């Protein structure tokens, strides 16, 4: 254990857990621990994690078996009993960091005297004898020296030093003031801007290049960059954790957890997802498609029993002495539906359309045929982009850049798009086809041409409308969804993966 960890462990004990109380209470737990844990669990529930009473009790029981000075073990004990879905891990981790962060006097916003000693120790270790001249503590370093120290620590991957440096950087650059109502991202941005990590990375790469005989091969360079990226990422996380710690110390765990509360991946709204959330969504989509495909296939096989399988029954009767005691049935093989997806890909709903297309294509083995059309004011078939392509992301990208979807001005015109669709592809809709329309039906006050949908419904097996807007926004402004919806077999609000999954399952 490094001195830092020991220090952290002690602080963790002193402040968070009334350790002595727990030790002395024979069957139950100390009041402090109980309060803290139930606050923690309440916050988990508030964040959307389903924590049952049994699991709550299990967690209480589990922490009794864990040495309280081992923060990692404590964390895993809670995780194992409370979080039963890996997609919820991130939410758990954030809340855990807030509730059980390392706390102590020197984590308060106005400043640390007691950590100087430990930094001095690290400094002299890293820089050798020379540091004595600086008076030992980091506070005395000039910005240039600090940058140099950071560079060296990153080059060597010295974690203890990086931790100390992150703390120092936050003290210097974040400009945190107690009670100031600013979010953590603001402080993070300020700190990272001063550290200028891009330049540091460049310098590290240069050094690696110079250090090798005859330069690095491209493979070596790539590996070196990965390594440095990982270290810098570690530093960034450390800075983030440090800021969070100080904010918790300033505002209290409950308030902090509330500001950090984020929707779980399956609840993220397509329309308002941030860049990071989109990445999380895409990650969540992949396992979802697998699950969905398995479930649909199973449903097809086990939905109901088919006609009697005479041959199989006779064969099995042999073990009953020729008595057909166990009748066997054929598996039913209901026809797979053909799907036509018609998606609005204008800016406002693009993300939604992309996820739906990806999902439908990822499980296309469950449908006999999938055809995709995209429109803004013109419409184009994009099925070919998906054919023979293994990487759906790329196909979707090509759809967005290559499809011919602009007719006049590139503002959504549902009426014109539907009319064109009907003229060109309408006759291909068969009684086996399910047509799915995706869009917010914000038609920029053009003509609706809703008759097309009425015709479609007559020919198709099913006609569905998926709208990424909350139901309360429907038919406000230029949205004319209900004019279309009357002709559909169903119009659904579809704002997140959970709703999308539910819809697709019903399709199969």
């Amino acid at each position: 254990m490094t001195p830092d960890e020991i220090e952290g462990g002690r602080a963790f004990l002193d402040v968070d857990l009334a350790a002595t109380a727990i030790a002395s209470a024979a069957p139950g737990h100390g009041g402090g621990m109980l309060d803290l844990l139930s606050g923690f669990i309440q916050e988990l529930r508030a964040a959307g994690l389903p924590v049952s009473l049994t699991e709550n009790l299990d967690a209480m029981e589990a922490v009794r078996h864990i040495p309280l000075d081992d923060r990692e073990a404590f964390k895993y004990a809670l995780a194992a009993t409370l979080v039963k879905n890996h997609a919820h891990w991130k939410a758990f981790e954030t809340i855990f960091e807030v509730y059980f962060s390392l706390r102590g006097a020197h984590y308060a916003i106005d400043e640390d005297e007691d950590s100087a000693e430990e930094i001095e120790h690290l400094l002299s270790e890293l820089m050798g004898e020379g540091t004595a001249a600086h008076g030992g503590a980091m506070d005395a370093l000039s910005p240039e020296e600090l940058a140099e120290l950071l560079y060296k620590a990153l080059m060597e991957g010295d974690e203890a030093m990086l931790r100390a440096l992150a703390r120092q950087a936050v003290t210097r650059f974040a400009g945190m003031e107690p009670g100031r109502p600013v979010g953590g991202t603001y402080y993070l941005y300020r700190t990272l801007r001063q550290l200028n990590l891009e330049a540091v990375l460049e310098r590290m790469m240069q050094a690696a290049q110079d250090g090798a005989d005859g330069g690095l091969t491209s493979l070596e360079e790539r590996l070196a960059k990965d390594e440095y990226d990982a270290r810098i990422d570690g530093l960034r996380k450390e800075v983030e954790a440090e800021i969070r710690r100080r904010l918790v110390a300033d505002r209290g765990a409950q308030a902090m957890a509330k500001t950090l509360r984020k929707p779980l991946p399956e609840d993220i709204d397509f329309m308002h997802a941030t860049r990071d959330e989109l990445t999380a969504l895409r990650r969540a989509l992949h396992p979802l498609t697998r699950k969905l495909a398995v479930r649909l296939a199973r449903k097809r096989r086990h939905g109901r029993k088919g006609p009697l399988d005479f041959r199989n029954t006779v064969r099995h009767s042999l073990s009953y002495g020729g008595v057909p005691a166990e009748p066997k049935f054929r598996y039913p093989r209901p026809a797979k539906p053909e799907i036509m997806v018609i998606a609005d890909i204008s800016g406002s709903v693009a993300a939604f359309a992309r996820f739906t297309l990806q999902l439908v294509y990822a499980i296309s083995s469950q449908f006999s045929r999938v055809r995709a059309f995209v429109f803004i004011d013109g419409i184009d078939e994009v099925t070919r982009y998906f054919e023979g392509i293994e990487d759906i992301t790329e196909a979707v990208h090509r759809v967005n850049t290559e499809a011919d979807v602009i007719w006049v001005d590139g503002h959504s015109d549902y009426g014109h798009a539907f009319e064109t669709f009907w003229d060109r592809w309408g006759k291909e809709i068969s009684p086996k086809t399910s047509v799915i329309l995706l869009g917010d039906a914000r038609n920029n006050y053009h003509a609706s041409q809703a008759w097309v949908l009425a015709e479609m419904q007559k020919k198709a097996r099913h006609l569905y409308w998926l709208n990424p807007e909350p139901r309360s926004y429907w038919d406000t402004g230029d949205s004319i969804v209900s004019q279309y919806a009357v002709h559909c077999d169903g119009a659904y609000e579809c704002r997140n993966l959970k709703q999308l999954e539910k819809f697709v399952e019903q399709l199969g």
Partner: protein
Amino acid sequence: MTDIDIAPRFTSVGAVRDGLRQVQYLADEGIAGVVYLADRLGKPVLVEGPAGTGKTQLAKSVAEMSGARLIRLQCYEGLDESKALYEWNYKKQLLRIQAQRLAEDSGASWSDIEEDIFSEEFLLTRPLLEAIRATEPVVLLIDEVDRVEVETEALLLEILSDYQVSIPELGTVAATQIPMVFLTSNNTRELSEALKRRCLFLHIDYPQLEREKEIVLTRVPGISDHLADQIVRIVRSIRTLELKKHPSVSETLDWARTLVLLGIESIDAEEAKQTLHILLKYQSDIIKAAKELADDGNSARPGGLRPGTAGSGTAGSGAAGSGGRGT
């Protein structure tokens, strides 16, 4: 909970980790911690994670470490209680009845026979019952539990929470000792709440760089430190790509063994490219990774390999591509 009281198997989290290390399973803090807790709380462990990260191996290693017998139930679609719990040996029962008929004069009544043919002698134990009835220490592994239907999951519930099996004709068979139970899942479907609630949850992900290197060093004999280091770095690099299936730990090991067999001391881009098919199982993945690895470092490296950048790059470009087109 049951009131079976047995001495805990492990003294501390550290002891678990060391024990597993001795049987060549390198557990991280989380894995060791959960195994320790499972023992202390007498609860089953539900292990989830990508394929090939050592979920099944964990159960095997725990068995080996504690000197227990491993009883394995491989789940599949259509598994039922006669395959999982117990079955009456009806052939033997028929023989018994027939034998009785021949010796009708012996005076035994029907009720004697009935009592007789539903006795333990005619019971075929299946893995779950076997684990419960074992008197020596056992580790029960219920593999790929996500393959059974939701309804069949219910079969497991009694055994997982109470460590007992009810047989209508015989009564309840309770465990004499609490076996360690591991359930593995590849997450192809959501397991029922009831099952999850009864288990401790452990997600095993791809290991950290250092741990993976250690795994390679322990499991692949004759590999040099330098080569192992290169291998895990390249694997890490490949895992940041967006692929259909990422290389698992077992594939890393296969790759390492191949390279050792080929007598390669230090791997270069060309050799990496030629042996990629061991690491990756889809043609499209192989092409993609080969392209990335052979890519000349100085020319355009689109977005780099930084986790997140590669992902959000494509996500962003999609939105940006159409973003300019109005609404």
